[in-house]
């Protein structure tokens, strides 16, 4: 369970359930069973450093994977465009589709990052 994947069930949820969801997400990110200031700090480091090497945890791995995939798509789109413009026989539609795919993948990555930051800021505003 992570904060993003719970998004679909937000509709029709009461505040208590929301809090529960939030704390589940927090536990998952920090890798512990109870919330302590130390773990909150760990969470902060995970969120701040993103996919930096050395940070363990499933979610940061996943985030890193998304970033790598988006990068691969961008490289693919760049290669297709270069192939088209340098006359290597890449068809026009392939270059356009590749760059559209890269653009949508990038938007997906930005949305994930926005959601993550939003969840983190929501947590930081929580009254303890």
């Amino acid at each position: 369970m992570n904060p993003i994947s719970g998004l679909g069930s937000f509709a029709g949820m009461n505040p208590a359930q929301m809090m529960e969801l939030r704390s589940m997400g927090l536990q998952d990110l920090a890798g512990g069973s109870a919330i302590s200031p130390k773990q909150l700090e760990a969470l902060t480091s995970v969120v701040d450093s993103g996919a930096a090497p050395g940070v363990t945890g499933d979610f940061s791995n996943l985030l890193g994977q998304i970033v790598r995939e988006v990068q691969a798509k961008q490289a693919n789109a760049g290669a297709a465009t270069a192939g088209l413009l340098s006359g290597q026989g890449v068809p026009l539609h392939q270059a356009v589709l590749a760059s559209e795919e890269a653009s949508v993948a990038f938007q997906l990555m930005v949305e994930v990052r926005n959601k993550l930051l939003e969840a983190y800021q929501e947590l930081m505003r929580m009254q303890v």
Partner: protein
Amino acid sequence: MIDILPGIQTTASALQAERIRADVISQNLANALTTRGADGKLYQRQQVRFESLLVNDPQGGNPVREVQVTIIPDERPARWAPDPANPGRMIEIPDINVHEEMVDLIVSQRTYEANLAAAKAARSMAIQTLSIGKRS
């Protein structure tokens, strides 16, 4: 790879197929009066055959059916026409009907447009799905 745009692979193959079809039609139009080709023979009208090709996703996703194009010669016999250089004599010319080729070209163009519409729809579906997560 993240599969982010639904059906984009199939659409790409269809666009490619229509390009090849338009190429072949242009070739027929250009050679409508060609009596001798590079091989010394009369130009033979070409046509395309579309086949559906099952492509399996290496990562175990849904198998998709792409379009595969083969260019095949049309076996219709040549036509006899008066030779402009030698009055009273006849020469063989390819049996290419310009009107027929133009109709094929229109069909090809419209099919290309339809596939472009599918690509646009896929893109806007993805963008609209992403907008679920937006706050404002």
